């Protein structure tokens, strides 16, 4: 019994000191995983994931605290990519997937309160106090954050219209597939 303890203790001291030494000597900061995760998130900064922006969500995922299916703007596609990156199973999105949208300010109703400007995370709304505001189409990410603050409810979200420039070829109909697999 004593030999056992002695021998094991010897090992413990060797390994313990090596580990302790290494833990200081080879300390590394930062997590490159976060960046990779963030690159997948759509950067809409909408907070629908429950985190204040895409980066915090990315950090939460990297920490293993958050599930990968919380970002509605990223859609199933985003979930799939995250699952791929992290080697996790693909899960259905935790919310309904919406088509991409665009905020439109009804300029006739706008009172120029600038609340929407403050809400927009990407500065997609222009206009000065007490003047009409407009959404810069090309900058709007469709995050809907400006909709709620508007006191006169003059902001509405509209799906982005299909034009020849952004028209996409559709998935070929799969005739022998049952209808239930359409989703």
């Amino acid at each position: 019994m004593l030999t056992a303890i002695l021998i094991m203790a010897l090992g413990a001291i060797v390994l313990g000191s090596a580990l302790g030494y290494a833990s200081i000597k080879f300390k590394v900061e930062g997590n490159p995983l976060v960046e990779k995760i963030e690159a997948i998130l759509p950067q809409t900064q909408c907070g629908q994931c429950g985190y204040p922006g895409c980066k915090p969500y990315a950090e939460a995922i990297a920490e293993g605290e958050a599930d990968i299916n919380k970002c509605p703007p990223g859609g199933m596609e985003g979930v799939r990519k995250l699952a791929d990156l992290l080697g996790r199973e693909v899960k259905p999105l935790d919310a309904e997937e919406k088509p991409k949208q665009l905020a439109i300010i009804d300029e006739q109703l706008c009172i120029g309160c600038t609340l929407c400007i403050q809400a927009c995370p990407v500065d997609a709304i222009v206009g000065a106090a007490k003047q009409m505001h407009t959404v810069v189409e090309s900058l709007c990410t469709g995050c809907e954050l400006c909709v709620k603050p508007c006191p006169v409810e003059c902001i509405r979200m509209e799906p982005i219209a299909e034009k020849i420039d952004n028209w996409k070829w559709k998935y070929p109909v799969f005739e022998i597939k049952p209808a239930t697999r359409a989703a």
Partner: protein
Amino acid sequence: MTRDEFRQIAANGLWKQNTSLVQILGLCPLLAVTTNLVNGVMLSLATIIVMAVSGVAVASLRNLIPHEIRIPVFILIVASLVTVVDLLFNANLHQLYLVLGIFIPLIVTNCIVLARVEAYANKNPPLQSLFDGVFMGTGMLWTLALLGGLRELIGNGTLFSGIDMVIPGLHPLQLLPANYPGFLLAMLPPGAFIVLGCLIAWKNWIEARAAARRQRRTPEPVAAGGCH
């Protein structure tokens, strides 16, 4: 500990986070020793003991363990417990000990044990950790029993073969006719994988059906996920 908390630990262990069917951990013993029901159950019992005790041990000691060496210490704790269990099996269930072979010592590296210790016991008080260990282990137990039973039945037509190694005097049940030729594949590694695959699919199917039913109850006319 509240009732709710308890219920949640139980649900997670037994079904929602079932180690074998959901977390897909601890596969080696799961597949290697389930050539019959008795082996599966006995190994699970050993694992439950290890998980429960190591959960309590880690949860009680967690504040004393420095971060840098927490993994070696956890492993040390688990390994000691496993060796004790190994010795107990050797002393009291010698025949079974020979059958289970290296899979008793391998409880140490069974990912679930360490995973639960690291993910749960390391962050929760001892009582919760105890229950977590017990229920996670029980979740494993029923899957191992099911898998072992299925494999034994398909492969050999019997149930409880080897029971005499645990409780002398009992005899295995011959469930299928005596001239059942035996589907050996089920007892071999390929059968283990395939039967487990089917069990996982079975769980997926149950959950999808439950989800579909839940959805049907809500008024939204969303199409049910295509599962039949």
